[in-house]
C-alpha cells in the first residue's frame, strides 16, 4: 500500500465509529474507494475496529458486494433476476463472454472489463437489463450487448 492508500484508509476509519459494529460499513467504503478489498486494508481494518482478522475475512467473503481481487476499469453487470432470466439474460452473457473472453466474476487481463452477474437490480420491467458502469440499459437485444459495452 502506498502512503496515499494509507491516508485514504485512515479517512475511512475516521468517518466510521471505531467499533466492531462498523465492520460492514467500513468494508463498503474500502470497496468503493479501492474498487476491491486489498489484503493489507483488511488487516488494518481488523486492527482499527478491534475485530479478529478471521471475522473481517469471513464478512469480506460472505457478501457479494465485496471483491478480493482488483476489478476492471469498466464494470459490466448483467442482471439475472427472474424477469431477465426468462427474457434471455443468458444470451447477453453468451455474447459478453465470447466477446471479451472472460467469465462472470473475471476481469480482462488488460484490466479494462469485469463481468459481474447480479441477482436483480429492480429494473425488471425493462428486462433483460445490463448496467455498464452506472448506466442502465433496458430491453437489450443480445446482438447489441457487446456494442453497448465497447461504447462505454
Amino acid at each position, binding site marked *: 500500500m502506498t502512503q496515499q492508500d494509507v491516508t485514504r484508509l485512515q479517512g475511512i476509519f475516521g468517518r466510521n465509529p471505531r467499533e466492531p459494529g462498523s465492520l460492514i460499513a467500513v468494508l463498503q467504503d474500502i470497496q468503493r474507494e479501492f474498487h476491491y478489498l486489498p489484503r493489507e486494508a*483488511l488487516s488494518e481494518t481488523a486492527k482499527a475496529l478491534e475485530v*479478529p482478522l*478471521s471475522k473481517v475475512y469471513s464478512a469480506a467473503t460472505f457478501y457479494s458486494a465485496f471483491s478480493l481481487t482488483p476489478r476492471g476499469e469498466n464494470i459490466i453487470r448483467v442482471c439475472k433476476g427472474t424477469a431477465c432470466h426468462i427474457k434471455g439474460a443468458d444470451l447477453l452473457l453468451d455474447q459478453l463472454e465470447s466477446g471479451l473472453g472472460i467469465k462472470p466474476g473475471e476481469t480482462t487481463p488488460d484490466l479494462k472489463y469485469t463481468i459481474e452477474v447480479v441477482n436483480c437490480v429492480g429494473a425488471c420491467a425493462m428486462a433483460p437489463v445490463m448496467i455498464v458502469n452506472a448506466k442502465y440499459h433496458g430491453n437489450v437485444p443480445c446482438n447489441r450487448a457487446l456494442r453497448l459495452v465497447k461504447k462505454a
Partner: protein
Amino acid sequence: MVHITINGKVIKATEGEMLLSVIRRHGIEIPALCHHEAIEPTGNCRLCMVEITREEWDGWKKHVTSCLYPVEEGLIVSTHTPDVIEIRKTILDLQLANCPDSEVIQKMAEEYGIYKTSYEVVPEGDNCIMCYACTRICEVLGRSAISAVGRGHRKEIAPPFGAEPPDCIGCLACAQICPTDVIPWTDRDNTRTIWDRKFELISCKECGRQTIAREFADYLIEKRNIPREYFEICDNCKRSELARKMGEIVARAQEVAI
C-alpha cells in the same frame, strides 16, 4: 422447576435447560454432530430435531432443534416419530454424500439404515460437516483465528486468506473438538504444524517430553495469570515429583512413629 412430557413420560427439568440435555439425561439417544458442552449451541446439523406440541395447540405440532429449545412447562416432546426419523435419515443421507469417507458419518447413517447415499457424491468433499465447533471453540478461547469463509454450498472453514492464521496459538482445540476429525495437525521434531503454521513446542525440563506450543503457553501466562514455571515441567513429571514428595513425607512420618 418445570414439567415436560418426553415420549409419554412426565419429567422434571430446570428452567433454562435445553431440551437436548434433558432428553439425554433420561437415557434417550438422540444424534447430534454440532453439539458440545464447551460451546454455545447453534443448530447447524439439525440432527437433534424433535417434535413438540402442547395441550392447547390442539393437535398442531412443530419440529425444533432440541439443542436450542429451552424447556417450558407443559411441553410435550416426541423424539422418534416417523417424521423426525425421516428428517434424521435425510440429513445423514445428505451428509454421507458430502463426506462419504467419514467413519463417524458412516456409522451414524448405518444406525438409521443408510449404507449408501441416495444422492450424487459432492465433488471435492472434505469430510467437513460445517458444524462450526472449531470456530466456536476458537472464539471461546478468545482467539478467533479461523472462521467460516464464503457463503452457500461453497462455504468452508479456513484461516484468513487461506494462509497461516496470525491469531492461532497452536492449542489444537479446533482439531480435538472436530466431530469428523478433519483438521490435520502434526507434532514432529519440537514443532507443531496446524493450519500450515509452525509452532515451537516447549520441552519438559525433567524428561524432555514435548508439552504445549510456546504461543499457547505465552497466551495462558498472559491471559490466565498462570506462572511461567508451570509450563516448564510436563504434567507427568509434575505427578511423579508429587508422588516422590508424598513418599518422602510418608517415610518421614513412619520414621517419627517408630
